[in-house]
């Protein structure tokens, strides 16, 4: 989960560094998937702690059993932050 959060936030932090539009859109398209991995892992982590038997697909038949928190735990904020973003220098070739 930490890896996905770092990836998501690094992509977000780096978006506006690109001057090449194609690269920026590519980065956004990858970011859009990493963040869904993060959301899924957040939900799974919450269910592991409270209702591990509900970690399954499809869930529809048991949807009423999901704890209320399952409806919000995956996206704790209205805007993703960048506190866990890695700086570009971290990946520089030395």
């Amino acid at each position, binding site marked *: 989960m930490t890896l996905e959060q770092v990836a998501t*936030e*690094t992509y*977000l*932090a*780096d*978006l*506006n*560094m*690109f*001057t*090449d*539009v*194609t*690269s*920026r*859109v*590519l*980065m*956004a*398209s*990858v*970011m*859009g*998937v990493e*963040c*869904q991995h*993060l*959301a*899924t892992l957040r*939900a799974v982590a919450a269910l592991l702690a409270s209702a591990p038997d509900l970690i399954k*697909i*499809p869930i*529809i*038949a048991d*949807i*009423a059993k*999901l*704890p*209320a*928190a*399952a*409806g*919000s735990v*995956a*996206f704790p*904020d*209205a*805007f*993703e*932050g*960048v*506190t*866990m*973003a*890695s*700086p*570009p*220098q971290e990946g*520089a*070739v030395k």
Partner: protein
Amino acid sequence: MNEPIDNVAFTRRHLLGGASVIGLSLIAAACGTSTKNTAASTSSVATATTGAATPTTAGATPTTAGATPTTAGATPTTAGAGATTTPDTTGGSVDVKVANLAAGLEVLAVGTYKAALDAATAGKLGAVPPAVAEFVTTAMKQHQMQLDAWNKVITGAGGTAVTAPNATLKPTVDGEFAKVTDITGAAKLALQLEEIAAATYNHAQSVLTDKDAIKLAGSIQIVDAQHAAILHFVLGEYPVPDVFAKVDLAAA
């Protein structure tokens, strides 16, 4: 409630037709300086990857975005306000036009979630699972905050805050909502809206010029994509259906 996902009463074509117009609006906002960027599509990823293969220039001269991160989840109060925007030949700026487009989508999202909440409260959608009720309440609140952020961009640039929903999609969404009879139907409609919003923000990266607006759009794209992921899960689908986030929902 247990209706298979394949039996969706409405099709994506309805909403996507409208979304295509939105995408075209984005392109128009760029005044011909941008053709539709399909970097996320399978066929174009290879090309896009080539472009991204040598990001050394961007990486070598980092801005402060990564070095001085903002507080996680904090409202990006300075996003785009008084932005250094790129004027276009039709008046206004590309960034403000995108902000207006985004705000209209957010108004539509807030209104649709509110309608769903009202219908659920009135017992028109049958039994409402606690997780779904929590989702609707949270998503509506977050879209309102996102709307407020875009309106701050707009008013900061001297414009008028957007309070009306996107006029292209509104009639279609209203028509589809009228057919919703249960939570599953409401979730399917919400998923369409979230995917269109996320795709539109992704596509907006190809036309936005202001760094704060780029970051704001990205931060909202993430949350809307996460809304979509949970809706996929609730509807019995794998929550991460794509390897690359698509932009084709934003522009045909």
